[in-house]
């Protein structure tokens, strides 16, 4: 805000002088037919418009430097929540190592009470190309770069859904690598954690769909905890049905959408890396039914 005020003031001052000069010294019909007085420069005047900007820059720099160090060197409280963020083409993996939770695209964090802060520290890396984690209402962006771990923290103070998306061009579907951050009260967050820590639903009613899932290539890329499916290339599906969206926030998680998605992901998100599975109708219906039970 301070920076904005200073730049606005400079604009008004310099722009005003410029406009005045243009109007005052424009060519008029009444001008005498000779050249105006030639002025070649003035050391005093030029010195003044060197020194004053230098002073402005010093002030701006010092305020900025203070913010940089306050943000980047902030010490981490013991009550902080740790999340490992892994960027993939074109989705987000979130792992909560201390809680034993793995999820995708929808990050749940507790809201932070100023008297008892519970910020979330994000330890970020990439599985493939560069990405950038950006939820504008929560924090500035931090790049997610392969072979490098970047750390940032977020600290939402009121509950709600915060939207964001990948902010570093990462390939064909960069535009639909969306991010959803759910700020939850401590109680709601604890309930969510308890639910995510449950093993995957093994209900016998959906045994047919489960067997379709397990005998197809699905298991090469996806994990469902408690089954042989342990792939890491795509999102963890253990609690898929508890999420609001699929395809990295691009599509509502409804049975109908899920069915279309499994049938041909490329039609809903062209260029995404999940192949069309070419299942017959019966298998498609069964596997969709199974996935909707994974609360």
């Amino acid at each position, binding site marked *: 805000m301070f920076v904005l005020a200073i730049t606005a003031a400079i604009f008004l001052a310099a722009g005003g002088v410029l406009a005045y000069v243009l109007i*005052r010294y424009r060519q008029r019909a009444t001008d005498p037919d000779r050249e105006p007085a030639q*002025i070649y420069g003035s050391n005093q005047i030029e010195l003044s418009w060197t020194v004053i900007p230098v002073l402005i820059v010093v002030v701006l720099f010092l305020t900025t430097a203070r913010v940089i160090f306050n943000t980047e060197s902030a010490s981490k409280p013991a009550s902080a929540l740790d999340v490992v963020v892994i960027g993939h083409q074109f989705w987000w993996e979130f792992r909560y190592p201390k809680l034993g939770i793995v999820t995708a695209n929808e990050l749940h964090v507790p809201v932070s009470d100023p008297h008892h802060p519970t910020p979330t520290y994000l330890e970020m890396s990439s599985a493939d190309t560069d990405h950038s984690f950006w939820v504008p209402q929560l924090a500035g962006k931090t790049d997610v770069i392969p072979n490098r771990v970047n750390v940032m923290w977020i600290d939402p103070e009121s509950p709600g859904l915060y939207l964001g998306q990948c902010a570093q*061009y990462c*390939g064909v579907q960069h535009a639909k690598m969306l991010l959803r951050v759910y700020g939850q009260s401590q109680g709601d967050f604890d309930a969510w954690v308890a639910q995510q820590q449950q093993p995957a639903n093994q209900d016998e009613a959906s045994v047919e769909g489960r067997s379709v899932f397990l005998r197809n290539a699905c298991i090469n890329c996806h994990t469902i905890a408690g089954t042989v499916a342990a792939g890491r290339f795509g999102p963890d599906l253990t609690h898929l049905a508890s999420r609001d969206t699929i395809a990295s926030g691009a599509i509502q998680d409804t049975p109908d959408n899920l069915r279309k998605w499994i049938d041909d992901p490329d039609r809903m998100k062209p260029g995404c890396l999940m192949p069309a599975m070419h299942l017959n109708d019966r298998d498609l219906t069964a596997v969709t039914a199974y996935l909707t039970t994974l609360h």
Partner: protein
Amino acid sequence: MADYLPLTGAIDLTSAPKARPLVLEVLHGWVTTVDHKKIGLMYIGYALVFLVIAGLEAVAMRLQLAVPHNSLVSPQVFNRLFTMHGTTMVFFVGMPILFGFGNYLIPLMLGARDMAFPRLNAFSFWIAAFGGLLLYFSFLGGDGLYGAGTAPDVGWFAYAPLTAKVFSPGHSTDYWTLGILLSGVGTIGTALNIVTTIIAMRCPGMELSRMPLLVWLYFITCCIVFVAVGPLTAAQIMLSIDRYLGGHFFDTQAGGSAVLWMHFFWIFGHPEVYILVLPAFGFANEIIPVFSRKAIFGYPAMVAATVAIGFISLSVWAHHMFTVGLGPGANTFFTLATMIIAVPTGIKIFNWIATLSGGNIHFTVAMMFCVAFLFQFLVAGLTGIMLSASPFDWQLSGSYFVVAHFHYVLVGAILFTIFAAFYYWFPKMSGRMLDETLGKWHFWLFLVGFHLTFDFMHIPGVLGMPRRIYTYEFDRGWGIWNLIVSSGVIFQVVAIGCFVFNLLRSYAKGRIAGPDPWDAWTLEWSTESPPPVYNFATIPTVQSRRPLWDLKHPEDPDSNYEM
């Protein structure tokens, strides 16, 4: 205005042969020429063609983004469009058009007969031109023209590891790499030529401190080229080694470094902004004094500020990398360096205002473009200061705010002064005046289009819209702003139409210009329009920075005041 012959003996009065040469002879003449003026014109013509192509790519992108969830082009095609738009505008429009004017004007302004190395000049032009053609060759094949062929889709800064073989199979990235490599070779050749010309080819009396400011600005620009373009060219070779010879410089899957590429690219990439903007300042430095009817205010300070910009521009590159996580130390350093560059830039703006002040301002079309440039450059500089504060940048980097900011510089400052340069020097180049009425249409339409597009583009950036997305969701509130931004494009397209029509029409039947239509003061106006192959029948001698002022005002020459 003035129709006398300013320098005695400067114009050859023997009449030229009248027979019209055959088309093939003309073509052969252009292809084999080593004349700096013809090469300059070829640079400008080639850049104009690419300006139209890359402009149409921008039009396609703005149509796609006008409304959310649009499906005019596929994601892949959109990615190709923005990659080609950026690459073309920087390497095959900006640099060639500026080098074109430089090639044409520098020997004339210095009172020389040609560049120092005419053959190197031709070589540099053709190698850079082949670079551009190679890049566009990628449109043939692959998915055909509608699918943009196998055009590169890695973005104009082509961050690793997206360019690695595994993420970018096929040859699209190779077209990009080789196109840039060739353009880099040509750029370095021309820069070498210009620097040598400035050092070695000045006419008697043309001391360094008497050179027109435009020549000084090209001198500094070319020095930056030496430092900045080398790393880019080296990085292209390293990338090719990665892709074809099993190297791992940028191959993160094998332990390479993505950040290394960013450093290489931006060590080139930020000085590149100054490579483009300094010649544009040079145009303003010539045009503003002539149409204020006053000498430039503070010539030594203008030179010193340029040298300072040249040095500082080499130490600001990592402000493109504030979000990479380089740590508070590096972020603070690059914040400071970036803010400091505002000081010499500010000196320039204040000196221009001081030049206008007390003058008698003639609002010709060239001058109108320069005035718009002053306002827009002021805004661009101030949003630049905002972005230099790295906490601001963490929020806005990679968003449409940044896109708006750099288009304010590239279009609002550089393209506007390039248009000014066309209106100012076209009479010298063609012998005929550009039409001022059409020029005013061009100016006002382009001004309205520019502000509709790029003023409003800041807003979705602040609202969280990242760049390089082919579509966006309904619920983000970006739709209305994008629609306004896209609507500005219509005005810009019509304006460019007026401009191109004006160029063609005036070339055929514009008013005859004469040697010195603007009553100007530098040496290029002392010879015929267009100048003969040898420029000056006798090499002129100068006593001050404004040799033609001295001739026109023998009672009060500049040489009395300059130190």
